[in-house]
């Protein structure tokens, strides 16, 4: 059979973000593929050198449109280490609370997209309905559904009132059974399994060779989570499990993410129950003493790392951002090999791509 090359993208119905693929096909089968990213490269690393640290917090909030809070958390954590600032525990707990809410929001959104690509629209509807619960909580806390602008260097700008406290606990009680219901569907529903089992399998060996991070790595048996392995405060004081599966396929990735949502709900309850009293932020100097720091955090998609070098002025000399999607993208040509055309969408969404993150 003769080979044909099918271009997909940069604009296409699979993802809302631009990413171009070129699939070499033989009939219905994809033989190999190549990809091109960079359509939403905004030069954020260069921009950050022209802005002060205070302005940069808002710039890095815009690296990602889903996990915006974890980016500012990682950046602020790095700058605070350079300033040798001690952030009040209440500020750290509120930071982590938003991180965990954001993780639920991100995984819910992903689950909807994945179900939609499989053709299972019922899960899509339920997942996106339940995601509204989390978005409402975040809107109540910060005023924003996705861009919260909560982090400042030295802590957080919001505080939790007793009404917030009760409202969040009540909403979490509604959310938890919904997540467990979704878990039951993914675990037992045969049509869901038929579309995701043994699709896009990555072995542990491949995961290690490509330095893959996050739920994709954990679905292939790599037990790695920055929150547990290099606990940045307040995660050193929290108890939680890190779900790991060993199948390495699109189904295992779904399971890992849903189990992570359950853990995140537990974490939110812990954070609210143990929430310390006191101030939420301390005053930070505008000029940062010379030095360099590597700051890591666990975003919903995996390890995010910031390298910050200061030359003593009020603007950073260099900030390097590496988002988890960039790392996970490199596995796609391996996954899009010797598969059926119909599985391309399941594989692409299974990795949970955030192209704006990867391009920066």
């Amino acid at each position, binding site marked *: 059979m003769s080979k044909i090359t099918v271009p997909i993208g940069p604009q296409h119905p699979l993802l809302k973000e631009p990413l171009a693929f070129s699939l070499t096909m033989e009939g219905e089968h994809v033989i190999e593929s190549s990809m091109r990213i960079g359509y939403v490269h905004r*030069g954020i690393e*260069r921009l950050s050198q022209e802005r002060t640290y205070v302005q940069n917090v808002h710039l890095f909030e815009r690296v990602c449109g889903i996990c915006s809070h974890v980016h500012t958390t990682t950046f602020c*954590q790095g700058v605070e280490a350079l300033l040798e600032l001690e952030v009040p525990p209440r500020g750290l707990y509120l930071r982590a609370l938003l991180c965990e809410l954001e993780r639920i929001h991100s995984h819910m959104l992903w689950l909807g997209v994945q179900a939609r690509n499989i053709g299972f629209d019922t899960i899509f509807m339920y997942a996106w309905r339940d995601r509204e619960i989390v978005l409402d909580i975040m809107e109540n806390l910060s005023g924003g559904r996705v861009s919260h602008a909560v982090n400042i260097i030295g802590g957080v700008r919001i505080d939790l009132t007793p009404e917030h406290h009760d409202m969040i606990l009540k909403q979490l009680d509604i959310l938890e059974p919904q997540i467990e219901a979704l878990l039951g569907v993914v675990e037992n529903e045969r049509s869901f399994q038929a579309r995701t089992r043994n699709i896009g399998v990555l072995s542990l060996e491949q995961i*290690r060779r490509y*330095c893959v991070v996050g739920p994709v790595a954990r679905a292939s048996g790599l037990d790695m989570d920055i929150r547990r392995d*290099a606990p940045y405060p307040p995660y050193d004081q929290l108890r939680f499990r890190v779900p790991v599966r060993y199948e390495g396929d699109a189904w295992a990735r779904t399971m890992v993410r849903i189990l992570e949502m359950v853990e995140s709900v537990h974490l939110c309850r812990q954070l609210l129950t143990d929430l310390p009293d006191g101030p939420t932020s301390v005053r930070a100097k505008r000029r940062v003493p010379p030095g360099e720091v590597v700051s890591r955090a666990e975003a919903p998609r995996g390890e995010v790392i910031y390298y910050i*070098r200061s030359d003593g002025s009020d603007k950073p000399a260099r900030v390097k951002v590496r988002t988890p999607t960039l790392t996970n*993208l490199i596995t796609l040509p391996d996954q899009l090999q010797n598969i059926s055309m119909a599985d391309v969408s399941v594989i692409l969404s299974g990795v949970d791509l955030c192209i704006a993150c990867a391009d920066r």
Partner: protein
Amino acid sequence: MSRLLTQIYLFEEIFATLQLAFPNEEFSVQGKPIDDTFLILAPEMVRPVVELLMEKFDVYHLSTITGDDTGNGVRLLYHFWSGYGITLSTLLPYDNLSVPTLTGLIPGAAFYEREVHEMLGVTFEGLDTPGPMFLPDDWEDGAGPVRYPLRQNANEKS
């Protein structure tokens, strides 16, 4: 044992192993805030040291490579992670911006090396660079306002 102590012991062991394996080379170690330690070495030592770290200490996770134009050369920082941050730091002089690729050992390094290559003009010997990654397709033909966007003199077109 506390995390900090474990890290100090691990680094003493790594440092001793490196000096034993490469007695004629100079290494230095700098502790950084948030669990990271920098190991400063010569550009030609990066590949053999990574090989040794992978073999003896099971350090396989390369988080990223940072290219940083400091004004007296381009610094390359290889951020490894193995429960603790281990960063290999090396300085390339402007007249020889070239270093062997790590993709033979760690295929996942390809994206990071391609990014440093197009943003700072560092050549990774042996790296396959099929066109630009983040920059537009016609950037290398001189269509862009600057050749290497992250160079300090990026605004003076050379």
